[in-house]
């Protein structure tokens, strides 16, 4: 067994893991404001990718396609919040779990019928010829994934830390009632968090589409791994998802090599169940004190 090959797999896997981390980061955004996540987030990734592909086919320039795709994702996020989440949150019920699953199903079916069931290539100006560093090949495409992930996360994190609107996220996460009394509109902040979360998943879709091709099922396994990263790292872990994404991506890539590609999803799923059993707040999450 060649050591370079294993290293190659670890590196490629870890790079892919950043996409999981990005989607997991999207979960954190909505979880912070409303303790809810979109179970149909995978469909947002897929729909945004399809939408961007359509824009490309119309002959629109790549940078504009990215902008359009991201905006589309944000709009979808807003739609999910309005149709699937708000009512349940007002009733203080967990109906949003079921409702976001349902909306995802609807999105899936719509995509199947509008764009077809086949996987399609996603053309991109970024090259996929590997550059060799110490014998390990990295493609500019993979580099673009990393850069894109960090750019989006950095941007949103900056927004959360340095703008008043962004600080409302932290306020709502800390104490929803107190935030309300201080004049922060919970509804609007939650809307914003869902829009950002849709934005982030659109980014994930656009970044990964050239590598995986675009199809209705492109995100169905991706989302399981994003869940896994989010839970293992903790739903309030901030950049913990980056490290967890690196590790999970690498493990997955090795599993796929040694046990066969069918077992690819297994480590993520197992880790998720284990994390829930041992440490429900996640590796990087904060433990809270039960109050009565």
């Amino acid at each position, binding site marked *: 067994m060649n050591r370079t090959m294993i290293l190659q797999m670890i590196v490629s896997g870890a790079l892919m893991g950043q996409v999981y981390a990005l989607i997991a980061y999207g979960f954190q955004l909505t979880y912070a404001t409303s303790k809810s996540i979109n179970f149909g987030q995978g469909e947002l990734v897929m729909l945004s990718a399809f939408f961007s592909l359509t824009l490309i086919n119309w002959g629109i320039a790549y940078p504009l396609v990215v902008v359009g795709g991201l905006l589309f994702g944000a709009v979808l996020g807003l739609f999910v919040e309005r149709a699937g989440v708000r009512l349940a949150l007002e009733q203080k019920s967990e109906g949003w779990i079921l409702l976001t699953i349902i909306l995802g199903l609807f999105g899936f079916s719509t995509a199947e019928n509008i764009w077809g069931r086949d996987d399609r290539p996603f053309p991109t100006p970024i090259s996929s010829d590997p550059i060799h560093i110490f014998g390990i090949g990295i493609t500019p495409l993979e580099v673009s994934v990393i850069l894109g992930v960090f750019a989006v996360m950095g941007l949103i994190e900056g927004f959360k830390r340095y703008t008043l609107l962004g600080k409302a996220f932290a306020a709502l996460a800390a104490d929803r009632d107190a935030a309300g009394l201080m004049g922060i509109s919970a509804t609007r902040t939650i809307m914003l968090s869902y829009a950002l979360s849709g934005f982030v998943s659109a980014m994930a879709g656009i970044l990964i589409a050239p590598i995986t091709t675009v199809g209705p099922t492109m995100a169905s396994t991706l989302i399981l791994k994003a869940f896994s990263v989010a839970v293992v790292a903790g739903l309030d872990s901030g950049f913990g998802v980056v490290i967890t994404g690196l590790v999970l991506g690498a493990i997955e890539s090795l599993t796929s090599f040694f046990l066969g590609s069918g077992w690819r999803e*297994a480590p993520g799923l197992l880790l998720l169940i284990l994390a829930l059993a041992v440490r429900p707040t996640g590796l990087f999450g904060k433990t809270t004190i039960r109050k*009565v």
Partner: protein
Amino acid sequence: MIMGKRQLLIHGSELFLFGLLAAIPGFINNPYALGLLTLLAIYGILLIGLDVTVGYLGQVNLAQVAFLGLGAYTAGLSVTLLGMGMLPALLLSLVVGLVCGGVLAFPSLRLEGPQFALGTLSFSALTTTILNEWESLTSGAQGLSIVRPPLFGMHLKAQGFYWLCLGLLALIWFFMKNLLSGRWGRAFEALRDSPIATDAMGVGCFRYKVAAFAFGSSLGSLAGGLYAFNFLYLQPQSFTYDLMVILLLGVVLGGRKSLWGAVIGAMIIVLLPNLLSNRFLFHLFAAVGLTLAVVAAVRGRLHKTTPWFQALAPVIAMGLLLIGGFMIGNTEDWRKAIFALMLFSVVVGLPEGVMGFVGRFFSRLLRMAPRTIPISAPLEVVLPQLSPGNQPILTIDALQRHFGGVKAVDGISLSIRSGQIHGLIGPNGSGKSTVVNVISGLYPPTQGKIYKNGTILPSGSLYRVALNGIARTFQNLQLFGELSALANVMVALRGMYRTPFFLILLGLARSEEQKAASHAMALLELVGLAGKSATPAKDLTYGDQRFLEIARALARRPELLILDEPAAGLSRPDIRQLMQIIRKIHQLGVTIILIEHHMDVVTALCDHVTVLDGGKIIAEGTPQAIKRDPKVMEAYLGEMPAVRQEQAEEGAC
């Protein structure tokens, strides 16, 4: 026993349902219809199981489809590999579901809401992966062919197999009805509404959550066994996420917490493909759905009972279904979107499902009398007089509890004598609530020990403390909101339920249930809630909710009762009633720890008062002595005026 109109109607309609289902093959000789009926029985069993977690535990369970698959493959493999007969194979399926469900419940035990859904989702995905990849056993994606094994030497044809499935459905209906209408069903619902109170009332989350999940899963895998012997061919792709969503549709659409709902849900699931393949039926269905949604929306808005979104969203979804139905080429292609629209309308517009709606409609239509109110048992039987020994019943020794750097309780030693009302007062943040939370086991102490009657009290477990004769109420109410006032008390009754599990399944716990209800009634009477026994706890007034908490704690027949700010937020007349209740409890010889801010209540009731400030005891004695204590005055009113004067002058300089 005389059967009321209600009982007669319920039993009659159940007999009618099963009689009709059993008789259908007699007069319709159609293999296709028989296939649908068989599937109806199988999904009926599965949905009754799913309803235990979704309806009773209130969790979104995405694992039932995995249990269907596990059960199917277990049954299939035990026939092909081990040559088992039908009954042993089905039994093995059931056991596999029971064990796997129990094991999966452990990690899911501390989980709520999204985490529970994610855990079960992962389990499902993992199961599909294993069924696909363990090719040497399951032959993977190629699929597994099975020959239907004999049942007691008989080779069942389609009709015989249908009757077997229907018979099993009837049996499970009977068992689950007995189980869920009694203490197990109540415990499951208690767990859903307040896990903390479930532990604090000595019921124990652990046992019931594992049990609920294991039961529900075992029914899923039993249904899987039948599924295998029905289709005689298995593929891992049959048991994926799509089917899971459809199963959830069945439970939600049929109606949660209802056996009827499960069977109606199964009927919908079975008929859906036919609905989609027939264009006329589909348009009709969409039109009826839209009409219902519009009627409900108009009524809801006229009475102003439903918010705009809840009224309009189902109309839009159903309208989309109707218009879309005319525009699309092939309904089968849009299958998932159609399910999604239907499910969406139901979840938003009809949260209680078809059965919840029908049930309410019928009970109004037939003017059904509400359930008869049980006659209460004499109070002295329910709460036997305890002898006031005036011995130390609870001794706290150098207790500390820190949260990070905050020393909420900082070295408290205290002795509480039996038969007394012991007041615990102090300004906000003085550590009162933390002290009782440590005593009752919510938090483990950082340091120090607590003794009850000389033996050390278990720490850090609400459940084990509750078993030691200590009961408590909660400052922020922790009632079982959806259960009736009576059921809230019945959940907590100590030493009442002795009927073994198997006799409960057979419906032989009725006398015990009646006795429990009569005891619970006596306690409701004590707190003045006898007239509201059937009201769900969440619909009681705030004051009544506080009284119900006390009645429920008394159902533990405690030696020591901890009342955590029982008068908080109560009106004057309610406070007077509260004081009378506390006096009555005191007369019965129950020792009481009373945490309270109302000084008049404390002065009037307490034999002995301990004052805390900053996590330390600053004074102890009779209420009168406490009132005059300068340290207490300082803690409550700030420093003495003279001192303040000096400070003000310093500040001015």
